[in-house]
């Protein structure tokens, strides 16, 4: 693993797979087919795109003009903020993989993750320039900003749909069905997690209060 870091070929492959994301966003069907079937994507590149997405989101919070993004700083928790992307992403990947694997889906979990991250590419690609752009416009020109901002999300959503259809070798109708089904799967998982966490926290709180009681009486 570490030895491969010294290998020039590793970096060449990495940049090639990263560059392939640009091909994917313009040729989604073809691109996402090759992503897994021709092994033209890599997890490393997917991680990079995800990191860039998170970075875009953080920088957006700080540097977007206040016209478009008013931040109530006392209530901002950067970890929760990042989790607001990472958590749904994790749920999506697990939910999607769990469902499709039961219904002839060809993609593996790592492939679902990789394809989804590749699908996120338009977000950093558009949001980074938008941060700069937002500081150059007034409220009268706010429409340009919001249109571009919505575009980045719609584009990403459509890419993820296309990616799912390609890696699972599904038809469009089946993809749509499983996108909705994954949504439900995510809700179910959230429900179970909430249940789990509330029980755990009550259990923990019990032992903490027990400990406190002991400390007071010692």
């Amino acid at each position, binding site marked *: 693993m570490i030895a491969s870091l010294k290998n020039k070929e590793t970096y060449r492959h990495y940049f090639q797979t990263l560059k392939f994301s640009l091909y994917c966003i313009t040729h989604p069907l073809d691109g996402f087919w090759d992503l897994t079937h021709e092994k033209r994507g890599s997890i490393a590149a997917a991680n990079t795109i995800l990191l860039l997405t998170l970075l875009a989101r953080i920088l957006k919070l700080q540097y977007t003009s*206040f016209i478009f993004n008013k931040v109530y700083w006392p209530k901002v928790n950067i970890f929760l903020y990042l989790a607001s992307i990472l958590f749904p992403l994790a749920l999506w990947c697990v939910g999607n993989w769990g469902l499709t694997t039961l219904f002839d889906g060809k993609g593996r979990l790592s492939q679902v993750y990789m394809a989804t991250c590749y699908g996120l590419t338009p977000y950093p690609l558009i949001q980074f320039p938008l941060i700069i752009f937002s500081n150059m416009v*007034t*409220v009268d020109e706010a429409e340009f900003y919001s249109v571009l901002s919505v575009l980045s999300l719609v584009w990403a959503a459509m890419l993820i749909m296309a990616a799912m259809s390609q890696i699972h070798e599904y038809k469009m109708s089946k993809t749509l069905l499983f996108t909705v089904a994954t949504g439900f799967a995510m809700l179910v998982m959230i429900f179970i997690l909430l249940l789990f966490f509330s029980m755990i926290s009550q259990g923990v709180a019990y032992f903490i209060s027990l400990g406190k009681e002991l400390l007071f009486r010692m």
Partner: protein
Amino acid sequence: MKKTLKRMAALALSVVTLAGSSMIVQAETGYTYGYDWWGDVQYSPDAYKTVAVYTDVELGLDKKLNAPQGLFVTGKSIYLCDTGNNRIIELERKDQDTISLVRIIDHIEGNVANKEFSSPTDIAVSEEGFLYIADKNNNRIVKLDHEGNYMMEFTKPVDATFDQSLSFLPSKIAIDTAGRVYCVATNANKGLIKYENDGTFSGFVGATPVTYNWTDYVWKKLATQEQRAQMESFVPTEYDNIYMDYEGFIYACTTNVTEEDLDSGAANPIRRLNMMGNDILVRNGDWYIIGDLYWGSGGGYEGPSLFTDITAMENDIFFGLDKTRGRLFAYDDQGRMLYCFGGNGNMDGYFKQPSALEHMGHDLLVLDSLDNSITLFTPTEYGNRIYDAIEQFQTGEYEKSGESWQSVMDMNGNYDLAYIGIGRSLLRQEKYREAMDYFRLKLDDDNYSKAFKQYRKEWVEEHIVIIFAGVFLILCVPLAIGKIKEIKREIDHADIFQDEQ
């Protein structure tokens, strides 16, 4: 030894945490506050202070006031409707803190059948000195000359638009400069009743558009005749009180509002009506003009602010009197809340059941119909600085206005309007860069955009050469490099060199 120390430390720590948490529970409260852009309550120095509270004793009356409803101020004179005692009291403000009795009008002189008042609820005085009195239970508005002699009366409109089965109960009146009478009558929900100066009814003004929601509408369509009759009908809201401002526009307020409508901004409890009866109140504030934003119960008082009276000053600042929590809300000409103060209680500056509000210059008078008193407020240093800043801006003294806002900010650094005021003053002085900073701090995007637009224009004009150079470089350098590469490739692959290899 170490153990006991530790134990003591733990005990001390727990005491500190307990004390700390109780301190948090006792949140900061104040008499005067405002809201920032986020809707957070920002306490401020007091903008008004109580001069005195006047009851029958201070005013030198023969008997206690009884549920007074109406108040009118013109110049230094104060007219008071002592509703329960069926009389009108004229007072005069002698100096800063003295109000003394001028006369008591308990009957009408002259040629009229009914010389007594019956529950007079409001009074208005025209510029010529005529007194107009809403004589509620006598179903009339009487016009008297200044000595109290009967002149004429305005009675129930004989018109198809007025439901003749209802009795005419005028409760609040306003007079314009031409002597026309505008009247709020109990039961009449078609707007303000308007009379010409000769006493003829000339129609309703300013009826509110009827609002209803779609689910109710569909239910009504499906319901039978009997069911429909039992349902609440969609009717326009009645006004509670009106005030004729110095420009001849009528400020009107209503308490017939639902919480949902207030929340969604559909209800406008305060309106400014023009001659056509259209609402022309400017609402550029961050929040709707609905008084308190938070309606949680506190001290047994719940629900939204209900404006029972309103008054507007010559600088277009208007005050609403909230009967729910006994508070006074001040808004500027843009509809932004300046501050709010008051409350329910027995102390000076608090009310039991405020019923009427008037202003005398910058001073405010509030009539309390349960406490049977008048409370006189005068602006503090802080309040005066705010007025100075606003008035200087209105008269075009932008630089001075900026300085005044700066002095306001010195007293209250949490006051959004001070920042925006300084920004607007800088904007007028064409100091766009500085103005932008002030607007950004208080998230005023409209004004920020105005300043930024000018700043951007200036910046582009100054840096036009660099911009063109940059564009030229970005466009032409890659082109040139591409061209050079192409030539190089052509040379490399040229046939003459190929042959030699």
